[in-house]
């Protein structure tokens, strides 16, 4: 007896589950049951799962009956000419949607050729075995599986044209590629996905060579002149927002060029680029931490100071500045208001990012690397035709990763460029022989190799070198946004230890496990030096071990408990002093017993 579940709820048992499924499917195909219903039999658990609820991912497949696909080739051409509608196909149950469960019971053929009587379904198109993310890959059937995984994951990080209305938007950050190109080697599904109108890379001339070893460990050598021509150039947009609030007593934030009498006034040139309303002029260049919007807010705490303040003296400077590590040119300024009617100013700053040493680039075959050297064009190798590669990749990147598809893309791209047409690299549809033959026809070696000449000496290189065109992504990871070092800098208020994180100019934490390493090496003095960032000298009462009070006015240090001044200074980390304070809040009375010396 197998159990039967509908939408995950147990409804009963059945003697012959396979017949039950067959009957249900027949009814569905006769439109007596909803087409959204999917049925599956789990042999291992001996249960039937019927699902008609929402939220299941389903995909269309052509039904095969007795070894014959219900969709004839004639129908396909009719569909293409729009003489037949998709609804009709669905209504006639020529195509049905399967969910993940039912797919487990189906036997799906990839192409028409391989259909046998055992098959239950056939793919609409062989390339549909790949999902949206993997549909950008070219010649995937020639690569190892993990490379496809990496490749499609990196395609997501590519800088391109994310949205076509980016000029109208003011998102916090977005990157746009300056001269995006559509790939020479394309796939069928790219258009359907929208990648033809949102391209995200460049077709680059690639030479597979070593070039003095500057591209070891997956580095890339890049042509300086190509960079000057705009290779991989992108614009990073970043918006900065400020809100003008209203406070109790009719006070409110004001946009203006702050008056020098305002508390926290910067300097005259800091407000140079603001117009009379205190808002920056469009197309002005803002330096790091430069002011975008001049804003003054009423002082939060009044009354401590003895003198009476007048007018603007009761305000403090609260201007909007660019956060540290950012600079650029103001693209646009948006004035609007929020739901409560508070004024909002948002300024979008643009910064052009030219690829530099350390930036990351990748192909569609999971071959990523960082730029290792930028070489002047005159020093780059060149072919007999005078073609100078944009990029030189290291040959060691290929054998261990077995990305044969990349080699084929280099050749296919070359053919595409020479013949001025785009080559199809869809799964199972790439035609290697044809591509090679075409290259040979155009007067090149059919393996894509060419004789290169040393750019410095002009000597002919001994070995022929694979040269062709590959589509390269520029990935979002830019060194300029990651590079970070610190020798001295800000500390956290509470712990007196260095701040954490690049944005706060922080240090790099030496953690618990690193500490263990220093101890294992027997170097506790080095360790003390590393951990000494929050070192303080605390006055402690010698009698009761309590932290003493330093009275600078009376110039006296005394114990708060026994009032005497037998005090010793004890050196400790501030974090420990903080812990002692926290212990006191737990009603624990920790005493420091100074070594009697």
């Amino acid at each position, binding site marked *: 007896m197998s159990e039967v579940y509908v939408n995950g709820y147990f409804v009963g048992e059945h003697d012959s589950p396979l017949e039950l499924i067959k009957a249900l499917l027949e009814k569905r195909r006769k439109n007596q049951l909803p087409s959204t219903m999917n049925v599956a039999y789990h042999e291992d658990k001996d249960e039937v799962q019927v699902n008609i609820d929402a939220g299941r991912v389903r995909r269309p497949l052509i039904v095969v009956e007795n070894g014959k696909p219900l969709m004839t080739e004639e129908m396909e051409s009719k569909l293409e000419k729009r003489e037949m509608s998709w609804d009709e196909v669905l209504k006639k149950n020529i195509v049905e949607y399967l969910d993940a469960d039912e797919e487990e019971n189906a036997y799906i053929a990839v192409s028409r050729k391989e259909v046998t009587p055992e098959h239950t379904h056939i793919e609409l198109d062989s390339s549909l075995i790949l999902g949206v993310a993997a549909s950008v890959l070219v010649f995937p059937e020639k690569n190892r599986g993990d490379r496809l995984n990496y490749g499609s994951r990196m395609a997501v990080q590519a800088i391109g044209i994310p949205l076509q209305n980016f000029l109208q938007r003011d998102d916090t950050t977005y990157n746009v590629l300056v001269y995006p190109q559509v790939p020479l080697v394309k796939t069928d599904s790219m258009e359907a996905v929208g990648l033809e109108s949102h391209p995200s890379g460049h077709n680059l001339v690639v030479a597979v060579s070593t070039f003095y070893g500057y591209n070891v460990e997956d580095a890339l050598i890049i042509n300086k002149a190509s960079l000057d021509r705009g290779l991989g150039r992108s614009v990073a947009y970043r918006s900065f927002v400020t809100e003008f609030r209203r406070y109790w007593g009719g006070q409110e934030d004001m946009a203006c060029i702050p008056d020098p009498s305002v508390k926290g006034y910067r300097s005259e040139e800091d407000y140079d680029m603001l117009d009379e309303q205190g808002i920056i002029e469009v197309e002005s260049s803002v330096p790091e931490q430069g002011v975008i919007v001049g804003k003054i807010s009423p002082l939060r705490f009044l009354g401590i100071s003895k003198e009476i303040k007048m007018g603007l003296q009761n305000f403090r400077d609260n201007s909007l500045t660019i956060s540290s590590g950012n600079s650029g040119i103001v693209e646009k300024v948006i004035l609007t208001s929020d739901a409560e009617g508070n004024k909002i100013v948002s300024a979008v700053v643009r910064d052009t990012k030219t690829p530099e040493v350390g930036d990351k680039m990748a192909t569609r075959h999971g071959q990523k690397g960082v730029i290792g050297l930028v070489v002047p064009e005159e020093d780059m190798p060149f072919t007999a035709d005078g073609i100078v590669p944009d990029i030189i990749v290291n040959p060691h990147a290929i054998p261990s990763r077995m990305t044969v598809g990349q080699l084929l893309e280099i050749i296919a791209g070359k053919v595409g460029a020479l013949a001025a047409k785009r080559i199809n690299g869809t799964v199972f549809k790439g035609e290697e022989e044809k591509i090679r033959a075409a290259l040979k026809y155009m007067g090149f070696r059919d393996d894509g190799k060419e004789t290169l000449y040393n750019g410095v000496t002009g000597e002919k290189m001994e070995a022929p070198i694979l040269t062709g065109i590959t589509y390269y992504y520029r990935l979002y990871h830019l060194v300029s946004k990651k590079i970070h070092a610190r020798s001295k800098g800000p500390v956290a208020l509470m712990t007196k230890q260095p701040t954490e994180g690049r944005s706060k100019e922080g240090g790099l934490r030496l953690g618990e496990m690193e500490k263990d390493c220093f*101890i*294992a090496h*027997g*170097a*506790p003095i080095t*360790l003390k030096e590393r951990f000494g960032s929050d070192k303080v000298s605390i006055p402690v009462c010698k009698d009761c071990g309590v932290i003493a009070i330093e009275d600078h006015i009376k110039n006296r240090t005394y114990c708060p408990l026994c009032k005497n001044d037998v005090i010793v200074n004890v050196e*400790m980390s501030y*974090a420990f002093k903080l812990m002692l304070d926290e212990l006191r809040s*737990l009603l*624990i009375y920790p005493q420091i017993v100074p070594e009697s010396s």
Partner: protein
Amino acid sequence: MGANCSIFEVGVIIMDESVIQNVLGLYEEKIDSLDISPKEKTALKLSLKDRYAKMRYDPGDAVGVVAAQSISEPATQTTLRSYHRAAGAGLNITQGLPRILEIFDARKVPVTPSMKIYLKKEYNNKDKAVEIASSIKETDLKHIMVMDSLDLANMALEVELDKGIIKQFNIIPDKIISAVKRKVKNVNASVDGNKLIFEIKKDKVTIKDLQALRFKLRDVHVKGIKGITHCIVERVGDEYVLYTLGSNLMKVSKIEGIDTSRLCSNNMFEIAEVLGIEAARNTLVMEIIETLRAQGVDTDVRHLLLVADAMTQSGEIQPIGRYGLSGSKSSVLARANFEETIRHLTDAAVYGLSDDLNGIVENVMIGKTAKVGTGLVDIAMKTQKKEKPKKVAETKE
């Protein structure tokens, strides 16, 4: 460090010559048998002595941290698959990371207790081995019966025994009945061929009673050692070795024909109880080493010896962790740093404990130089003070 070093006042560490001589003695013969000139031989011995002295840990070396890192770093590198077939025939003994955790946590009973049983020479043949195996393996009534059924006409329970098994293991039906009577009271039993018939001594016997009896009888222990669910005979070299699932050292060692000197179990607590703490320490080392080696981890034994020593030095097996070694450190701050911070601190407050700041963690916490490695030594300089007249003290005595 250790018993063989002595620290002189000047701070020079002299290694006990005898230790080096002992080690050299092991290789002396080998060096002497080499086909090299006597000059080269002495040079070799000297360099061996030198290397040996260099390889020793220096005073102040953090051996514990090094041991911990030497075990845990390679352990993260391997996948440490948890199931691995041991003993060929298919006993599933816990392996890999779960087993390592089990050992270091010193769980009282391992998930899969197991024994390795060697036989005495005169018992070392296949028939005897199988016989011993069958006498070790726990056999319940349910293992030796074909079926049990209710005889509703006579309100009795019929148990049909498996002829083959009974014959093979030489089980006498009367023995079964006495075993049943030991477990279940108020039952009359009789033998009818290879059927056993049980009746309940009661006026009104219901079907419910019979059913209850039926399930009770199935678990009646007939033969073998309780807890040992499997026993497999395997040929290792020219010997027959028994592998078991389930462990009972005490009872197994009483069975005749077993080589008790080589009998071992993977349950260290049982070993500690039966054979003493030293044996348990050895088991501990062997178990860790076997588990690590099975995963291809090549950690030096000496690290494991150190851990095993630390775990057994109190005379009983202590786990590493909250309720074991880390939880029993003498320093309040070190304990608070590890786990259950607040409990340790409040307890220290209640009992008025003090911390002498001798350990490493404490000193790292307060920002002082920890007393390990280069921090162990200090410059000691005699300042020329005027010596106090000692006469006063002497006269007072």
